[in-house]
């Protein structure tokens, strides 16, 4: 009926001084379009459950949508945390190139999904704009030694690299999201001095850091790194999103809390740590931890007792287990729910300079996102700080449980469905979400 009415209307419109052949072809074209339109989808659903062939690159496709000015929606807890994108040629093309599964979906299909979402522990979060991303890393470092750089490179998400110079000159304000990895912000070079003090790579790293300290008028590397840590803290305080993994989590908080205390070994600043360092730590400014005990011995390769696994101290090393992602109320706690979207809830643990976080030193109010059942440590933390927020994930590489210096790089094309790497990418998209008032 609708088509018939359309046909009559068009015929009337074209009845004035238009040749019959032209008239017929225009009418035919419009009718064909009208018939075809309901068959083409208005949206692309990117499933993130086991139906997805490449979970990691799906984040890249979603990021592309935001980057090109389109809006996306994140269906929390629906089909593994699916994304809803507009059905556009560039997105279809990118999905096809990347091997990302997409399902064309009509308005009716979207309505059905929304109805299902409304009735369960699910919610819809609108993603508005592509966050500007910076990774704290030396500019000339290859991308294969840091899980976040690996994940973003593989997913095709653009990022900039920032290092001490940029942080200390205030460049972080250009970015929405900053990532830190295994940097030691206490300036003790992850206590690798003992074993590698004459290794060319170590000497090069130390000289680079000492040059930075001199350039910015700092007495030594610990002082310079503390200044960097303080600038990062300020970035979060002013509304930035921080994601840290591995040793950067622990050392950042230690550096912030020890801003006025010497906790560094003599190999880094020429003096032993203050004897009363523990007592003088100012935990009021730190992000996640308080009351941790500083490890004063330069011979013990640990910075403090924050890490539960202590992988580089053989006598203290704890075995790896599995960690479980908590389920949050998508409607009441959308932020936490976003950060744990996954197609797996139990994930094998993986070592890093800092692998996990002892519960005893976690500040009250910090949200624990994942933990190992029965263990005194947790794996994945999130919290608000000032106007911003931070997330800490322990461990170095989710797909290389015992990653050591010198291990070959992880090839993510062989692990496109990595649940561990999804946690990293959840954090990348989280700052894109339209802000909603938190209900709890």
């Amino acid at each position: 009926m609708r088509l018939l009415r359309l046909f009559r209307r068009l015929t009337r419109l074209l009845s004035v001084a238009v040749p019959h052949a032209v008239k017929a072809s225009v009418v035919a074209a419009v009718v064909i379009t009208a018939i075809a339109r309901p068959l083409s989808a208005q949206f692309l659903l990117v499933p993130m459950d086991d139906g997805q062939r490449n979970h990691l690159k799906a984040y890249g496709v979603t990021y592309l949508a935001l980057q090109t000015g389109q809006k996306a929606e994140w269906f929390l807890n629906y089909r593994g945390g699916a994304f809803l994108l507009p059905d556009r040629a560039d997105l279809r093309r990118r999905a096809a190139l990347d091997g990302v599964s997409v399902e064309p979906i009509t308005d009716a299909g979207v309505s059905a999904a929304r109805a299902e979402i409304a009735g369960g522990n699910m919610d819809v979060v609108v993603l508005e704009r592509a966050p500007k991303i910076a990774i704290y890393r030396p500019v000339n470092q290859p991308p294969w030694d840091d899980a976040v750089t690996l994940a973003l490179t593989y997913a095709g998400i653009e990022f900039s690299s920032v290092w001490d110079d940029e942080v200390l000159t205030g460049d972080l304000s250009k970015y929405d999201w900053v990532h830190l990895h295994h940097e030691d912000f206490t300036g003790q070079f992850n206590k690798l001095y003992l074993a590698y003090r004459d290794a060319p790579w170590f000497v090069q790293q130390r000289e680079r850091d000492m040059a930075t300290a001199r350039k910015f008028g700092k007495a030594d590397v610990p002082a310079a790194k503390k200044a960097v840590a303080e600038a990062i803290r300020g970035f979060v305080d002013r509304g930035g999103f921080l994601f840290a993994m591995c040793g950067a989590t622990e050392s950042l908080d230690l550096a912030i809390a020890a801003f006025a205390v010497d906790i560094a070994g003599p190999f880094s600043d020429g003096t032993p740590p203050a004897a009363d360092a523990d007592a003088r730590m100012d935990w009021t400014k730190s992000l996640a931890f308080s009351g941790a005990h500083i490890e004063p011995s330069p011979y013990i390769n640990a910075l403090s007792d924050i890490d539960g696994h202590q992988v580089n101290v053989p006598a203290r090393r704890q075995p790896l287990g599995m960690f479980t992602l908590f389920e949050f109320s998508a409607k009441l706690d959308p932020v936490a729910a976003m950060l744990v979207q996954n197609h797996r809830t139990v994930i094998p643990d993986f070592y890093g300079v800092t692998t996990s976080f002892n519960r005893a030193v976690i500040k009250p109010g910090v949200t624990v996102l994942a933990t190992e059942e029965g263990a005194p440590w947790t794996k994945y933390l999130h919290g608000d700080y000032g106007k911003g927020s931070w997330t800490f994930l322990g461990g170095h590489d989710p797909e290389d449980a015992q990653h050591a210096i010198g291990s070959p790089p992880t090839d993510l094309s062989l692990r496109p469905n990595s649940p561990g790497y999804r946690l990293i990418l959840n954090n990348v998209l989280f700052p894109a979400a339209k802000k909603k008032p938190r209900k709890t």
Partner: protein
Amino acid sequence: MARHRRNRFGFALLTAVFVLGSAMGAAGAQGRTATASAGAAADTLDPLSRALDAEDRGQLVVAASAYREVLQRALIPGGSDGDRVALALLGLERVWAEMGARDSILPVVRRVLTIRPTDPTAHSIQLRSLVALARDDEARESFAMWRRAAGNDGAPYREYARLLLAQGRAQAADSVLADAGRLLGAAGMLSGEVAQLHVALNRWQAAAVAFRESFADQPYLETAALYGLQRAPAEARDSIRTVLLANPVQLLPRRLLSALELSWGEPRRAWAAIASVQPDDSTAASWRAFGERAEVAQSWLVARDAWSAVFERRGDLEAQQRAAQAALNADDADGALVIVRRPTTNVEKNGTNGTTGVATTNRDVIRLQTLLPIEIAALGELGRPAEAQQRLDAASKQLDPQAREAMARPLVTAYLRAGDLTRAKAAVQGTDLEDDDETAGWFALYEGDLVTARKRLVRAATQRATLVDALGLLARTRTAQSPALGRAFLLLAQRDSARAAKAFVALADTLADAAPALLGLGARLSDAPTALTLWDRVIATWPTSPEAAESLLASARARRAANDIPSATARLERLLIEYPTSALLPQARRELEQLRGQVPPSESASQFPRAFR
């Protein structure tokens, strides 16, 4: 001054003996008494057994305590049990290091050295611990003390230099080894360490010199030299070659160079390095080993040369056969023919050892059965089937039926190589090949009988590339007869790939249903520019054919090889977008990710040493 030091040392020793004697004497005596009286049951109470068991179970504190007990009992002034002292010290070192208390070993070692001042284990543990703990000044003192105690022994220098090298402190190791050369006057004793030092400092030529010198006394360093020197960058390799090739020509340096060249991907140079060594039994053994490695690496030309050299030296049939087969595999049929026609002087290994007429006959038969198939195949490759037939006829009396059967296939190949299908068919008469599906299928195909060819070839046991090509083509056409297609495949059998390619391309106009497959096959046999044209034609004209996706991938690879990255990328993207169900998608996606730098290159292992991150 020296006398004063001796007095002081003597006083310290006496004091230590007195103190330790009074502290441990009772315990030691008790321990010995208990051991004697308890008999076999004492084993379970033996502190050393307990220590080792506890260490195995990870009970480090218990193990440490037991090791201390062992030490206490074994360390008796004037009558220590050196072995148990060493075991206890090494155990304590391990256990305390695991417990993060490495420095706890130091006072214990000091005490042991007071009683056993020349104990090499105690000295090395002390030095090792101090170096690991970064107590550099004390480590130097410890080294000096050990050096004084050891006299002209090079062990302290070796140990200290090795520790420093392991920590990447090559300059410090350099000083130690220089001292050794100066004080001991025998740098050769430490030439292995000196060589390692040069490797650590990237002084490749000096390292090669030091390794070469060390071979005189320490031939076992050959493997260490190979491991150290193979990391030399390409620009430094010529200097290593110069050192190892220098006169006098010696087997060990040449063998090292040969192994290095193999690891650097230079098999021809590898063979050249050992080819000119004076032949003797050791050299022949090296050549034999080299020939086997070259076979595994499928470096057939150098395998041919190595086995020829072994044959020259030893004259044995096995070497002759392997040399000829390697030559044949290397497409050197002429060379293979020359080798098989040389007389064998040593056939003992093959079962004959007499000098009687019967034995001689047996030898000839064995030689014939071993070498004739290669000779026939070589003649076939050279397009001399008549000669092959003649050789076979001449030898037929000496061959049993089974051996004759074995010669049929190379003879058929010889005729086909010459393009003589009629004689090839005649050659299979009366042999098992008459019933062979593959042989019958090929004959049918060459004659253009595609129906029979399809039926027989599909049952063939082998999966050679040409067979797969033929089956692929036959599956794409419903034509029953095509003599032109048969002729094209016969050209392939004659190894005339250029004319075969043209024939397949020409057939694309007549065998329309198989056109893309014919063009794809033609492209594979053609040079790169022609192949690119053919692939583009397949993509443009038959975009829905199975060969279109294959052509896109092949042309992307060819363009990538020509460093035309944008074109390669465009083709891979087109394959991924337009052929979403193609089986080639994973390969295409992988190659696209590599082009975009989204996955690590295969050789991108980090330069850093191992420690957890």
